[in-house]
């Protein structure tokens, strides 16, 4: 058994078992309607978490994504309200901005040799500040294109819907998996997480890869912002506070090592779905309070950190006797 799949399998087992437990109590949870909603409601988180997965795999962290999502939302709302620009053009523009934003943070991290934590903290403040400057009000988006996009879905048997944004999330995950597992860039990301110095010695272009990673995270945060604006049909600069934390939790619960170098983009999807499932269960239950979500996620986080530590210790011992 290949040890690197152990955390991923643990995640999947936890998901299946908890889904089964939920379904035993509320059989409705198995309906395609709930499944469809699970995808739609968590689409923006999932897309942002794909970017976070790459960042964490490389041994970094990106605290800015929640703010970037909010910035994207308010940027779109203001653009569509005060100009006659087509939403697709606005989407392209905002994606360029957020990608550049991420790439610049990556460049600062690499060239100024500063910890990603502080650089992206500055990015978090900056993006949120830019959002505030654009508007501090919640601005509804009433563009007909948005309405058209919302009406665009695939109907599942049983009344469930795969909406555009839910489908987009699945697509982003598929592309993310491809990027991580089947491209040289993907291997370079893992290599950085394994050790930046060794990677450089082995010929990995560390600077370029770092910039690309944070650029990708910025791009996906922007895409997540677009999805969030489609989801809420509004832009609000105070939205999605703390989404970075949910994304980090999804990545770690998805079996990725928080110190980098090991994990799977696919695991993050399961991590997002576990979080969504906890919320769905609490909604179904009605009597359970919402704070259990946070406590449960914290407990899962702790369990996975301990598990990674144990796997590390075990593999060290195994190696000695192999």
């Amino acid at each position, binding site marked *: 058994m290949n040890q690197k799949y152990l955390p991923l399998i643990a995640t999947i087992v936890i998901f299946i078992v908890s889904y089964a437990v939920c379904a035993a109590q509320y059989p409705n949870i198995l309906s395609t309607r709930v499944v469809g909603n699970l995808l739609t409601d968590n689409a923006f988180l999932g897309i942002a978490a794909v970017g976070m997965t790459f960042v964490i795999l490389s041994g970094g962290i990106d605290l800015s994504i929640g703010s970037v999502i909010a910035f994207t939302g308010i940027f779109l709302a203001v653009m569509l309200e005060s100009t006659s620009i087509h939403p697709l053009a606005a989407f392209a523009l905002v994606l360029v901005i957020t990608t550049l934003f991420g790439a610049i943070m990556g460049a600062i991290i690499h060239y100024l040799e500063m910890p990603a934590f502080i650089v992206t903290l500055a990015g978090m403040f900056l993006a949120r500040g830019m959002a505030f400057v654009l508007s501090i009000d919640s601005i509804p988006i009433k563009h007909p294109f948005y309405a058209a996009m919302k009406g665009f879905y695939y109907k599942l048997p049983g009344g469930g819907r795969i909406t555009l944004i839910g489908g987009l999330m699945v697509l982003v995950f598929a592309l993310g998996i491809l990027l991580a597992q089947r*491209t040289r860039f993907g291997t370079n990301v893992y*290599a950085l997480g*394994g*050790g930046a110095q060794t990677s450089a010695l*082995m010929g990995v272009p560390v600077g370029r890869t770092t910039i690309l990673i944070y650029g990708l995270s910025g791009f996906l945060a922007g895409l997540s912002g677009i999805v969030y604006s489609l989801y809420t049909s509004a832009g609000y600069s105070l939205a999605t506070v703390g989404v970075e934390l949910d994304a980090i939790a999804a990545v770690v619960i998805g079996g990725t090592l928080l110190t980098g*170098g090991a994990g799977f983009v696919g695991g993050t999807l399961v991590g997002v779905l576990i979080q969504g499932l906890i919320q769905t269960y609490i909604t179904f239950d009605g009597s359970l309070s919402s704070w259990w979500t946070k406590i449960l996620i914290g407990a899962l986080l702790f369990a996975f950190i301990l598990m990674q530590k144990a796997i590390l210790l075990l593999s060290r011992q195994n*190696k000695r006797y192999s």
Partner: protein
Amino acid sequence: MSTADAIACGSPYFTGDLRFPGTLVFMLNNTNDILTAVGIVKTFPGAVALDKVNFSLRRGEVHALLGENGAGKSTLIKCMTGAYRRDAGTLTLDGTEIDPHDTLDAQKLGIGTVYQEVNLLGNLSVAENLFLGRQPRRFGLVQTGEMKKRANALLAQYGININVSAALGSFSVAIQQVVAIARAVDLSGKVLILDEPTASLDAQEVEMLFRIVRDLRARGLGIVFITHFLEQVYDLTDRITVLRNGQLVGTRETASLPRRELVTMMLGHELQSAEKAVAEAESSSGPVQFRFSNYGKAGTIKPFDLDVRKGEVVGIAGLLGSGRTETAELLFGVHKADSGTAEIGGKPANLSSPRAAIAARFGFCPEDRKVDGIIGELSVRENIALALQARRGWARPLSAAEQNALADRYIKALDIRTSDREKPIRLLSGGNQQKAILARWLATNPEFLILDEPTRGIDVGAHAEIIRLIRELCAQGMSLIVISSELEELVAYSSRVLVLRDRAHVAELTGSEITTEHIVNAIAAAPGAGEHP
């Protein structure tokens, strides 16, 4: 260049050592040489690491590069692989002069390096490690199947058959070494440098590695082999180059170099050096103050017995990797002994941690000052006061005046050259850092002081002072354990010398037995057999 030219222009190819007149070798610019380095100079602030060193490597040979720590082996390797820029000298690879500006460049030119701590990525698969940056692609996507096939084919050449999609880190160090070698040879293919590849391998794994190295030699590669195991040198290599203190001692054919002479070349002393000025101190007949019986730790150092009297210096000799530092760390509680007992003054002592050892009035100046000794950003004053303060506990601080007095006293007594006691210690030279660490322990008024290579990498003046200090401390009744690769030094101040080999104590010399010659003999003796060649 002809031989005559070589002599005429100051003979850069002269690599013999005057003290070994039989070894005068003129290295002709042999077309069989694949890599030559001539007149390599590398200086660091305050130290000359390499002083006009010459080195040549032939096609199809395994060439041992030997020398103690600080001799300049790794600096020479780094100059040849571009990790360091040399200050002077030329490198010629396969007939053309080269100037690698980094290791990647050297790799492309044909010089591959494999380090002891495998410099690959344990979290990536074996195949990814082999093909990182040059994975086979189609339409931008890595063809994992093709990559696995190629990886299997590559490793089959080395006679190993493993699951190449498993993480490299899940394999033993030996397998990782082979993968590193396969990668280096595949990328470079002319010269392979093996930097202590066998340090953490067991006998069987070493055999596997040697089989591979012999194969590569047969394929015509030039292989540089760095090790501190003399048996392996004689087992595997064709020629030997020895460096000492940044200078070339000589290059010799392995087959015609007696083991004893090799050790002499490495440790560098005159064989006919003066007998120990036998001033058999009365101390060596006094009662045993510190007694370690059957003391040891599995996998670190074999159990040994050690008695130390008051006012006695016990020297520890042995080559790098023989278990010298491990012995010191065991005595100081850095590693916990898993067999045997320790007694101080006849009573059992607890030495389970450095803190416990310090409470028993032990002190330890470690070999690697930068990693284990200095607290770089703290001042000289704080570094000197640290161990005493730690023993007193946080609630009983040394007052500023006490700290200043302490620092001033030792700066003066040990002649620590610093403009100011408040200067961060990292700005001091190596010798002065060493003296400050010594001061840290002297301030705790220890009864048992362990010095691991106290004179390594420091200038001549400081060197002499530290030896004077060792004598003084001993005269004051302190018991010392001194580890050193400078044998004259050990002979000069030790009342007994322990000799270590292969992580075991193999000999104990006392009184008139303590001569450099005896020490060399004890170190060089092949296990269980007579002298090699």
